[in-house]
């Protein structure tokens, strides 16, 4: 632990495992919900995942108040405002988010607008600024990576300014997260790998962040172990439900960890890459993680040394001299990336990901203004960010 004071907040009820989804009506009733608005994306509707959620309402004595199924891959403040208007029009009283990070963050954004008595999400941007109680929010993740089901953070794009706005408040933590392996088993290998690397980045950055504490450390280490044991096997055999569930649990644990310890330079640059180049967040995390670790190596030497144990295993850890452990931890991440690239063509560099070097200046400027940079253990200026991007290219 680096600080002499920490806060840890995680009021989330977690339902994880087989048939977890069937508890949805009970949880809605427990929360006093009469007409929930389901927020999802079109693709999930088309492959039948939303139908599985709708099926649990049959004979349960509770009906959906409405549905919005057009959340784009990179959600924006306009979409949030549009759904908030629908929520009010249909007189809904709660939100159910079925989807990945974009859908969950969109639902959080909608919750901010409808609960705080505003019409425009942009008016409420900031940190710890939500003072009114929120509407109940139940989250059913269909990817295992963002951890948004467990975090106090929502990241939503402002298309006008081409930036990603971060909203942070303890009120943004959902009421219930339902992790059901049926919900993630259709995820294609490339997306599984990218979202898995996103979860790994959350855990690693949480473990080395300014506000790391014994509780966030425990969650981060548990998440890294689960990712090490399951990510590659799930990419190879996507139908393995137990491994899928383990990855979903890992993503949630990493979410709890970073929600209480925050992330750092990898996320700051990753958000900027998403805003400028529309690079998928998971891919950005995968490419940048080893370079971010190298950047923080001097300051986080002891933390990376300790991370070799969950990243590799006890035998590798014991066989590696203490001074070589941080470098070995970074090497393990690189090896995992190469294995994932062999299995599903996950990009390992910004060049492979299609990023143009001419965009580096804009990316560095945007990353410099990203709130995540504040929590990085090492200061970074524009030139440092430029160098990191150049190395990752």
């Amino acid at each position: 632990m680096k600080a002499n004071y920490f806060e840890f907040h995680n009021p989330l009820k977690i339902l994880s495992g087989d048939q977890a989804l069937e508890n949805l009506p009970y949880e809605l009733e427990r929360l006093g919900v009469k007409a929930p608005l389901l927020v999802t994306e079109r693709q999930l509707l088309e492959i039948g995942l939303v139908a599985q959620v709708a099926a649990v309402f049959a004979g349960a004595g509770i009906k959906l108040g409405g549905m919005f199924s057009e959340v784009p891959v990179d959600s924006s403040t306009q979409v949030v405002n549009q759904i908030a208007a629908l929520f009010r029009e249909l007189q809904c009283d709660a939100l159910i988010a079925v989807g990945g990070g974009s859908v969950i963050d969109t639902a959080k954004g909608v919750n901010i607008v409808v609960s705080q008595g505003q019409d425009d999400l942009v008016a409420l941007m900031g940190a710890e600024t939500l003072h009114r109680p929120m509407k109940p929010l139940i989250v059913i993740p269909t990817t295992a990576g963002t951890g948004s089901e467990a975090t106090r953070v929502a990241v939503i794009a402002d298309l006008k300014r081409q930036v990603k706005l971060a909203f942070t408040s303890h009120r943004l933590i959902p009421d219930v997260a339902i992790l059901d392996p049926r919900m993630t088993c259709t995820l294609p290998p490339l997306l599984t790998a990218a979202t898995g690397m996103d979860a790994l980045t959350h855990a690693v950055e949480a473990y080395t962040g300014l506000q790391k504490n014994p509780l966030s450390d425990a969650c981060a280490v548990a998440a890294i172990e689960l990712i090490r044991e399951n990510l590659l096997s799930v990419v190879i055999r996507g139908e393995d439900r137990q491994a899928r569930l383990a990855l979903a649990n890992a993503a949630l644990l990493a979410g709890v960890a970073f929600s209480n310890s925050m992330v750092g330079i990898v996320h700051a640059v990753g958000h900027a890459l998403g805003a400028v180049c529309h690079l998928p967040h998971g891919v950005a995390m995968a490419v940048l993680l080893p370079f971010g670790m190298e950047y923080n190596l001097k300051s986080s030497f002891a933390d990376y040394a300790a991370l070799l144990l969950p990243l590799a295993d006890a035998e590798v850890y014991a066989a590696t001299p203490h001074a070589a452990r941080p470098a070995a931890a970074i090497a393990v991440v690189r090896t995992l990336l190469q294995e994932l690239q062999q299995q599903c063509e996950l990009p390992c560099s910004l060049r492979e990901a299609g990023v143009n070097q001419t965009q580096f200046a804009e990316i560095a400027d945007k990353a410099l203004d990203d709130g995540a940079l504040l929590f990085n253990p090492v200061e970074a200026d524009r030139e440092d960010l430029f160098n990191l991007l150049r190395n990752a290219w």
Partner: protein
Amino acid sequence: MSTVLGTGTLPVPLSVRSQRSVQDFMLRMLFWLVGQAFLAAARWDKGLRRELAGWEEGFVLRFMVAPVGPMLLLKKRQGRLRYQGGSGSQADLTICFKTLGAALRLFTARLSFSDAFAQHRVSVVGDVARAMSVYRCFNQVQFYLLPGIMARKVLKRKPPLTFGALLIRCYVWFVGIPCGLFIPIRRRM
């Protein structure tokens, strides 16, 4: 034997109340001092000038202690930063300390800006990207205000003390802050 209290507030010992008053006064002084240092450093420091150039005209920055504690307001007018005193309800960006103690620790260089955020000791009302600009400015102002040994404690990376930086530090301490004593707030608005 239990004591039954009335519906009023809990009794606060006199020593605690007077300590609170002293801390309140100290923080008002520190707000003023940092405000003057910010204005003075922003006249000469290239990095600060570049950051300020990104702030829109009329932008008001407010530091305050919740709910009704001391305040520091700075406003950008005619391209320059102006000291706006210690009261005002309108601001484009508010950095609000949850407790007086947290603000005191930050302004006496016992807590870094990044740790204050990481430990949830402050809330930010407004654009987080602009708050990052304020963070960079605040770090630079601390660099000019604090002796090296203290700056190293609160800055993740302390800039080198070049001859130019030394001149700005002297200007802040021997011109900017003393001059602030003789210029009434209304003339700066």
